[in-house]
């Protein structure tokens, strides 16, 4: 009964830890391994226009921010560069825009907008109520032409989406028919054609709008925004590619704006120039995932370890590996059957090894402990009481450590300096315990246990400083819940320890011999059958 409860609890805790980690990995896209890099595009819009010497106002439509605002991408950073202009970013239903204002501007003016963009999997949000645009002004010939086309298109289509598709096809065909040519007359740019198609659909009361965006697939230094058509089919907005008449956005399409306003409007200059430059870089995946998460919800980052100041993060990077070290101790003690000085002492020594590195750590540790032991043996002869003796050993340990550091510094051995990170109280206790073991059980046992402690510490160190693991517990601290679950399960492990098998092997051998002879002795003395199905688990 109690065991079931324990299993359920362990399962629950592990499941919570795993699913939270999975969410962070899959949805928030935190990387599982360190030094993983992700693509970051920096997009720069360069605005150039002539000032007329008087007050000037410049308006630029900007990409939306917020979860899912740009399908497939997220703007994690943006900067406005405008010397002398004051700026104001406003948000409306149609999108975001920035307004630059200046009192006096003359000559060539250059303003910049820069944005850093990363991939994001947040479900896209399509804002905006469906609205039927104003139909275009057409000549009589054109009205006749468009009616003919509409009739034909209607024959070939079933709903709004297919109607729009067929309508677009009329204009992008290699050899457009005469009616289409009449309509396209004077519409030279893709932009104009897009606006015309969107408004033409208004004649049939189809809500439509033109989107602007660019492909991030192959970064170019000069890029223009290309228009896309969006129609509302009664339930949702559907995007149509004006170049292919296909439904949906092409891959790597970065939606700049949905606003029907002009992308760029400058009061003083009717023909302002705008150029886009896209650059693709690789950046640290954790940093990017953090920024991406911030775009979704600030609190997700604020109330996580990534929201701490950098130096605190460094501390937690180390602290979070301590449970792993402790878990290794648990395995080594309860499943393997190792004996060490103190329960978690090797973990603390392993922490100190982080700074000294393992080889010099072992050497420094052995050096100080053996010198301390010598001192302790001498103090023994003075017959000091326990606490004064411990205090004296502690003082000596610190003096020894400082001497080692000074000497190492003079001899240009840099590792000597990091010895100060050894927990000296722990070392003092080690010395005391070792000397008792030395007296009581002989030097052999004491040295064996001391060496055993060092081996276990080194093992814990190797695991605790293994880069991928350190990264994993820092970025996904919830994985420690899984560790807790396994620990709870191991808490009821009542099977044999590995070293016990070795200890009791003589008995097993006897039993084996008895079986071989065919004279299996009955159990417990009363001839009962051996309870083979007892609940102890098989040995590891």
């Amino acid at each position, binding site marked *: 009964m109690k065991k079931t409860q324990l299993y359920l609890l362990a399962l629950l805790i592990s499941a919570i830890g795993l699913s939270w980690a999975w969410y962070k990995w899959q949805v928030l896209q935190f990387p599982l391994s360190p030094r993983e890099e992700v693509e970051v595009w920096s997009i720069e819009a360069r605005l150039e226009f002539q000032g007329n010497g008087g007050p000037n106002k410049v308006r630029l439509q900007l990409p939306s921010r917020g979860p899912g605002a740009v399908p497939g991408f997220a703007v994690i950073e943006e900067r406005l560069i405008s010397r002398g202009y004051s700026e104001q970013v406003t948000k409306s239903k149609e999108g975001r825009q920035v307004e630059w204002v200046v009192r006096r501007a003359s000559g060539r003016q250059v303003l910049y907008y820069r944005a850093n963009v990363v991939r994001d999997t947040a479900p896209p949000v399509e804002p905006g109520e469906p609205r039927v645009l104003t139909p275009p002004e057409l000549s009589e010939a054109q009205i006749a032409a468009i009616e003919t086309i509409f009739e034909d298109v209607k024959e070939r289509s079933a709903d709004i989406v297919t109607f729009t598709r067929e309508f677009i096809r009329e204009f992008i065909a290699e050899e457009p028919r005469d009616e289409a040519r009449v309509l396209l007359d004077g519409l030279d740019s893709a932009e104009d054609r897009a606006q015309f198609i969107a408004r033409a659909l208004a004649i049939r009361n189809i809500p439509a709008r033109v989107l602007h965006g660019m492909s991030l697939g192959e970064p170019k230094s000069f890029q223009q925004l290309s228009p896309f058509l969006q129609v509302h089919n009664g339930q949702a907005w559907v995007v149509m590619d004006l170049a292919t008449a296909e439904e949906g956005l092409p891959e790597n399409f970065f939606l700049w704006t949905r606003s029907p306003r002009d992308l760029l409007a400058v009061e003083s200059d009717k023909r302002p120039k705008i150029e886009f430059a896209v650059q693709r870089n690789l950046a640290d995946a954790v940093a990017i995932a953090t920024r991406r998460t911030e775009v979704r919800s600030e609190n997700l980052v604020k109330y996580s370890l990534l929201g701490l100041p950098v130096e605190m993060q460094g501390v937690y990077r180390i602290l979070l590996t301590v449970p792993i070290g402790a878990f290794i101790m648990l395995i080594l003690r309860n499943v393997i059957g190792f004996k060490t000085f103190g329960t978690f002492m090797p973990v603390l020594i392993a922490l100190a090894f982080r700074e000294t590195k393992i080889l010099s750590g072992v050497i420094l540790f052995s050096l100080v402990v053996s010198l301390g032991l010598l001192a302790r043996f001498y103090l023994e002869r003075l017959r000091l009481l*326990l606490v004064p003796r411990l205090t004296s050993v502690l003082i000596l340990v610190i003096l020894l450590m400082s001497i080692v550091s000074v000497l190492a510094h003079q001899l240009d051995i840099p590792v000597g300096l990091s010895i100060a990170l050894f927990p000296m109280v722990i070392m003092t206790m080690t010395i005391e315990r070792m000397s008792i073991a030395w007296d*009581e059980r002989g030097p052999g046992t004491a040295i064996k246990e001391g060496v055993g402690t060092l081996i276990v510490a080194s093992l814990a160190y190797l695991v605790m400083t293994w880069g991928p693991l350190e990264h994993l517990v820092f970025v996904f601290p919830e994985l420690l819940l899984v560790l807790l679950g396994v620990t709870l399960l191991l808490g009821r492990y009542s099977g044999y320890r590995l070293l016990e098998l070795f200890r*009791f092997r003589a*008995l*097993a*051998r006897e*039993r*084996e011999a008895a079986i071989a002879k065919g004279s299996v002795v009955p159990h*417990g003395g009363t001839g009962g059958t051996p309870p083979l199905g007892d609940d102890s688990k*098989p040995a590891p």
Partner: protein
Amino acid sequence: MMNPFTIAKRLREIGLAGINRRNADYVLRWNPRKFYPRVDDKVLTKQLAIEAGLPVPELYAVVREEHEIEELHAKIKDREAFVAKPAHGSGGDGILVITGRRGAKYRRSNGQLMDQEDFEHHLSNTLSGLFSLGGQPDAVLIEYCVQFDPIFDHVSYKGVPDVRVIVFRGYPVMAMIRLPTRMSDGKANLHQGAIGVGIDIPTGLTRRGVWGNEPVKEHPDTEHSIIGLAIPRWDELLHIAARASEMSGLGYVGVDLVLDKTLGPLILELNARPGLAIQIANGNGLIHRLDKIEKIATPDPDPAARVAFSRREFPTL
């Protein structure tokens, strides 16, 4: 060499209990924490035993404070032999056996002479908690030094051999006698090199022995056979063990007894986490026997009936 899985399987068949099993299924389940002081504090154990009318070595003095150490010499000047042991000691650590004197010096059981200053230093170390778990301040018991039964003369090297009985819910389950060796420095502790000899519960005869982790037939120092020795006053011994476990309140307990030449069986101490080597000494596992006792709904209140049950059911094979 057998593979670990076969070893585990064979060990399960003979019902061998490992440390994890002992802790999880017996110590944690049957030994309420609140009763631990009754066995951890030897002064308290002794008091309880006396109240229950169980035989223990006579207590000469208790030293609790540093300044009492000096007064001790006068207090025990009439005692030729005595034992000084930490009240919270474990595993036989810190026990000082004084068998005689030479002038102002004390003679230890291993023949060494110890001057007063050495003696005082040892006691003061004990008071500071050198031998107690966690190093908490301790007390020292000065008590009667057991004159052990001559039957064990050929099979022990100095020191006092003691009998360990595992008692589960008041029923004696398994027993062994621990014989000191030269290696164990006269201490009856298996970790320190004493021999464990399994005792057949129905007959009180020794069956087989273990030294370290290997079976032995003779005492390594005296070369006398350790097999087939009859433990004197065996039934009485089992009785005392059964009643001692009642007094402790612990369900799973190891009772350590000695056989005094004149006084008979005496309780030395109780242990809330008795070791597992007793199984090697007996060549039998504990689990099958413990299972049998767990099936009993309510243990018989009469210790004699419980001892009779054990003597019927638990022969060493």
